[in-house]
């Protein structure tokens, strides 16, 4: 009897969390799946019945080369941006362990301010920095002899547009990576590192041979979160589009769905693309979840 009661308690304690998750995330998800199987346009938004069309929305989308272009661009954008964020973030975390207390404090406060800055405020400043006419970036680059950057329009071609977007997203996400990894680093025992350096391990060897494996759980969850966030990036792209061009060449998945749904009023197709994004996210996370399960089993 005693053991029976004890084994039930954890499940009971899980009930509120699961209920909130189901309510908060299950409802929109189910609505989205249903909508993606319907013809749902402006008329349905204003109360007309929405006819079920099976997988028509998916079939139409699969045949649309523009969607696959956007998916490709988004994946490339999220992998590159997440990778750069990780490199800079880990670098800053290592720097924090290496510098004096005052320097570390200054670094931490600076990172914290960047992290705490509201996206819209930060974006406004970034857009000013890259402004074609009066931007500081062009002004500074133009001062380098031989570089002709006066009036260079960063937002005029998709490549430089996404480059600017990537720089901004990296700037916004580096603090999170740096702090998480720094927290991980404080758990690496000094004795082990000291022993390794006595045995003649170089700094590079110590990082790859000792530090990286020890903080691997932190690195992998942070990388996964970065990948997911950078795949779903919306505000930064939308605001850059408002400053530059909103034409299709400048779309990533977030703005593509927004345009398809709220602007062109095809909620069925927009839901179908959202489900696709969900599938990509699950696929990305799958490796991580599998390794978690394996660790649990071990």
């Amino acid at each position, binding site marked *: 009897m005693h053991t029976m009661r004890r084994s039930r308690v954890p499940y009971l304690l899980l009930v509120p969390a699961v209920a909130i998750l189901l309510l908060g995330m299950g409802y929109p998800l189910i609505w989205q799946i249903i909508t993606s199987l319907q013809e749902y346009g402006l008329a349905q938004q204003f109360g007309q019945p929405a006819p079920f069309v099976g997988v028509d929305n998916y079939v139409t989308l699969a045949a649309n080369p523009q969607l696959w272009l956007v998916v490709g661009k988004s994946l490339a954008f999220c992998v590159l941006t997440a990778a750069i964020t990780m490199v800079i973030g880990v670098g800053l975390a290592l720097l924090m362990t290496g510098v004096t207390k005052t320097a570390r404090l200054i670094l931490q406060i600076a990172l914290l301010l960047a992290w705490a800055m509201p996206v819209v405020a930060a974006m406004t400043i970034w857009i000013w920095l890259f402004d074609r006419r009066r931007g500081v970036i062009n002004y500074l680059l133009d001062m380098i002899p031989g570089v002709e950057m006066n009036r260079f329009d960063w937002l005029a071609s998709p490549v430089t547009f996404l480059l600017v977007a990537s720089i901004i997203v990296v700037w916004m996400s580096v603090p999170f990576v740096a702090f998480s990894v720094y927290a991980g680093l404080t758990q690496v025992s000094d004795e082990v590192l000291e022993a390794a350096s006595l045995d003649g391990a170089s700094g590079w060897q110590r990082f790859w041979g000792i530090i990286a494996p020890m903080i691997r759980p932190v690195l992998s969850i942070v990388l996964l979160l970065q990948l997911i966030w950078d795949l779903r990036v919306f505000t930064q792209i939308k605001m850059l589009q408002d400053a530059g061009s909103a034409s299709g060449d400048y779309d990533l998945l977030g703005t593509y769905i927004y*345009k398809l749904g709220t602007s062109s009023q095809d909620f069925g197709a927009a839901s179908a693309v959202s489900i696709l994004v969900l599938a990509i996210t699950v696929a990305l996370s799958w490796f991580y979840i599998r390794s978690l399960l394996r660790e649990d089993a071990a």
Partner: protein
Amino acid sequence: MRKMRKIGAVAAATAALVVLAGCSTAAPEDEGGQDITLWLMGGDTPDALRDYLKTEYADATGGTLTIEEQDWADALAKLTTALPDAENTPDVTEIGNTWSPTFTTVGAFTDITDLMPELGGDDLLPSFVEAGAVDGANYAVPYYFGSRYIFYRKDLWSAAGLPVPTTLEEFNTSAAALRTDGQSGFYIGGEDWRNGISWIFANGGELAVKNGDTWESSLSDPSTIAGLQQLQALYTSASLAPVNEADSTPWVNINDNEATGAPEAATIIAPGWARWSIGDLAPDPEDSTKTVATWNPDKFGVFVLPGVDGGVAPVFAGGSNIAISAASKNQEASKELLKIIFSEEYQTMLGENGLGPANLQYADALGDDEFATALIDSAADSKLTPAAPGWAAVEGSGLLEEFFGKVNGGGDIEALAAEYDEKITALLNG
């Protein structure tokens, strides 16, 4: 125990707040007035007019009128999500005239046919009334109109020995002649289709035509192609504006640049209310971070875009409609607001501020200066975009910006027209 009591106190305070909040929303009804919300698009309606509406509404009903300004760029998305929702809908909303057919067709607005005689009836701008009517019933009515015309630098044009052009071709040639490395002869963004369509209309082309019961995009029509070829040549030879710039604020380019003392454009096309931003710049005495523009008739002038064979080219009929949301809980109060907007006094105020009044009886209020003449002349021949049920979706999709950007970027017009005809036709019929 003490801790428990504290939590109890917090809970009681929270409950009290909730109750109080509930009271405050219910209160105005006790005073007899209904609070309503009006959405205005962009900053075109001057503050004085907004204040007038608020005061008059309070006097007439005892309620409060809240005016919320929506950005044009996101307005379509906001209208789509807010209008069907009784809890979040604006009671009355301004809506882009070209979006009226779409929202009217799906039943977003209240039928106000009965109210029409009181609002001005047959005196209201006919093309806009039509855009907001379905099967003879009226839903959205005109708010103001403002066709676009040309603002030019008299000093630069006369220094180059160029007269005011009388044909479209002469305009194109003069604009190209005025271009230098640092100055657009005619400043137009590559994606700016709202101004670019004037060249299509002038050549007898259309964006879409109705074939029987279905709408078809007509970019491949020979007349449309002819207009696009002219536009492409003009953009290439006369404009330094970025190819990815859409409908923008071109007046910053015609004023003297503060840094160089010279303008960046000899000519622009803009709605009439741009005049308040054009002129000699001086620091604002009330706010040193801003500048005020004073119109200088020796340096600046206006004319109407000429047609292919002289006369006036049909330009985009800019402006808005206004309608009551069908989901609004305050239908009667909303009708009161419409009556105020269509009163002689408010219509006159619109005209005095350079906005074409919906009721043409009060068009005199625009005055008889060069701006009023240009506005009235250009409005006479102006054209609306196709009244197709899916037109708002076409605008929302950004396909027109894309198409015009690619054309002006030097693309193959016929191939692009065929490609975008297919994409746009798919959206046109709702």
